[in-house]
């Protein structure tokens, strides 16, 4: 295998990333790095290039069909906020072609233990956000939620709420990625949109319900057992600004 000094770019989509990596493996090229062309910043010492324009999802479909578990690992790393995720996926796939399905038990390889770790982190965060997400009812009867997860888990969340609240219409907005999932009439639409300084008009019951919930939240705690550290362990502070009952507690140093 030859190592070269090129940085390979992909258009930010999952399928283009996979096709780029597959091409590199086929040509037996060990890249310096693989990067998203949207966030890529030019530097003096390396050259960036795009080797394929293939954005079909034929390959991702093939991987999904042959081994759904491996597909899930790759998809999760793609969605993660990990810095060198593209290279990790590259090395993981390189070894996966070599060893086949048993690759997932070979934690001795750094790329394998790393990708398992990342996938676990992404799934964990998605699971937590399914609980911590809070909808607010707007005047238009849309349910509206703001989230700011570390990883890009909007897809997991919208699938979850499509099954859970099929009769409602709702919007989940990812503040960090400026991405929005809209569910309306049995369909999910995901779009990139920046909604800075938006004014929300809430329905007339909204404030009352929030107050009722906060009352319940405060009442249900047993004061003889109070344990703020444990609370924070399970519900990290980074999520608090979007959790209705915790919002006012950010300033308090409990």
């Amino acid at each position: 295998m030859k190592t070269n000094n090129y940085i390979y770019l992909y258009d930010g989509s999952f399928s283009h990333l996979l096709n780029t990596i597959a091409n590199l493996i086929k040509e037996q090229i060990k890249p310096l790095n693989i990067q998203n062309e949207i966030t890529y910043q030019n530097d003096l010492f390396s050259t960036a290039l795009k080797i394929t324009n293939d954005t079909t999802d034929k390959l991702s479909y093939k991987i999904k069909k042959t081994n759904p578990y491996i597909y899930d690992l790759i998809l999760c790393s793609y969605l993660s906020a990990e810095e060198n995720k593209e290279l990790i996926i590259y090395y993981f796939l390189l070894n996966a072609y070599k060893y086949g399905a048993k690759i997932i038990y070979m934690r001795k390889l750094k790329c394998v233990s790393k990708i398992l770790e990342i996938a676990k982190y992404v799934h964990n965060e998605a699971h937590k956000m399914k609980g911590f997400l809070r909808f607010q009812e707007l005047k238009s009867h849309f349910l509206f939620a703001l989230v700011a997860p570390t990883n890009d888990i909007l897809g997991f969340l919208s699938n979850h709420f499509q099954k859970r609240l099929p009769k409602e219409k709702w919007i989940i907005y990812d503040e960090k990625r400026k991405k929005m999932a809209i569910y309306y009439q049995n369909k999910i639409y995901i779009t990139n949109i920046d909604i800075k300084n938006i004014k929300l008009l809430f329905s007339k019951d909204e404030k009352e319900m929030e107050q009722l919930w906060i009352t319940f939240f405060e009442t249900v705690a047993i004061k003889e057992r109070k344990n703020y550290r444990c609370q924070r362990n399970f519900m990290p502070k980074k999520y608090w600004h979007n959790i209705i009952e915790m919002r006012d507690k950010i300033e308090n140093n409990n």
Partner: protein
Amino acid sequence: MTLKDKLTILADGAKYDASCSSSGSSRSNCDGTGNASISGICHSFSSDGRCISLLKILMTNCCIFDCKYCLNRKSNNIKRAIFSPEEICEITMNFYRRNYIEGLFLSSGIIKNPDYTMEKLIETIYLLRKKYNFHGYIHCKAIPGCSSYLLKKLGNLVDRLSANVELPTNKSLKLLAPNKDNKKVTNIMQTVRENKNKYFVPAGQSTQLIIGATTDTDYDIMKNSENLYQKYQLKRVFYSAYIPVNKDKMLPMLKTPPLKREHRLYQADWLLRYYHYKTSDLLTIDNQNLNILIDPKANWALNHLNEFPKEINKASYYELLKIPGIGPTSAKRIIKSRAYYPLELNDLKKMGVVLKRAKYFILCNGKYFMPSKYFQKQFIYTNLVLIDEEPKNNSSRQLSLFYENK
């Protein structure tokens, strides 16, 4: 009385019930609101570190019973309230839509008689399921002494049913809860067990025991739990450290609830359910209480030190399970991985083995990790106790037991 006042009173009365899990049911949505998630979802964590997944309330805190330890007992002079079925449904639906909760936990004081109370509970839940079209998780308390006809009706509507044993021996029950009868509780468990299927109480049944209100030993408690798991196939037994809410000469006056003891009992309970231990492995007639300073699994290993250290690359699944610091997940990973290459100490860490516990009890390719002269009971014991003393581990381990997502 406003809705907010009622909620305050009736949530306050329900909060001592430890059960918070919303797992075990995969009820799907059919043209309505909500579904159940098989793993359960925690929606928030209260300031005591316990998870909030269900709207945990009483239908009413009026009660004809006079159990000494209970906040809602007849002889207490407190504000009483009652929710109408519509009120419960409205709050549940509004909370659920906003994703505050995973479902409803409905308990109640006993009004008039058990059957009347049960009918009221059924009315509420029927309304929620049929009129409001709610398909989320519902955990409901069964009222001991109700007719089996009503019990079966309720079981068809809910995901989990539970009846609380509260005290492990008949003697203490007579002392503190003179109106309660252990037989009535086990009757409920028997009926649920016989009828359980995909549509009837899909998430199974659970119960709760109070710890530290009587002189019962850990041996009494664990024997009782073991019996319940075997005989009625309970999903969970919850342990609740006694908190003095009433003054009574029959009750002990505790300054702080026995949280540490509760924690050790939960650990022992886990050993029964996931690690193939029996109560008799952990406790005997001569040694009736768990060691507070060290977890029961490490304690067992120290008492059977002649079986250790175990070779990681050869030990069977069941042998791996008995090593402190290795659980079902990491044991399975070890078995899978060692088929491809022999494991070393470093590999174990990547598999989720808690090395600071396990390192005293294992061999990797025949290698013990430190000079073999340190392989002795007193040395290991001291070190393990010190791990538990660290405050950071202490709090997180203690309450992690309430976090049920597995």
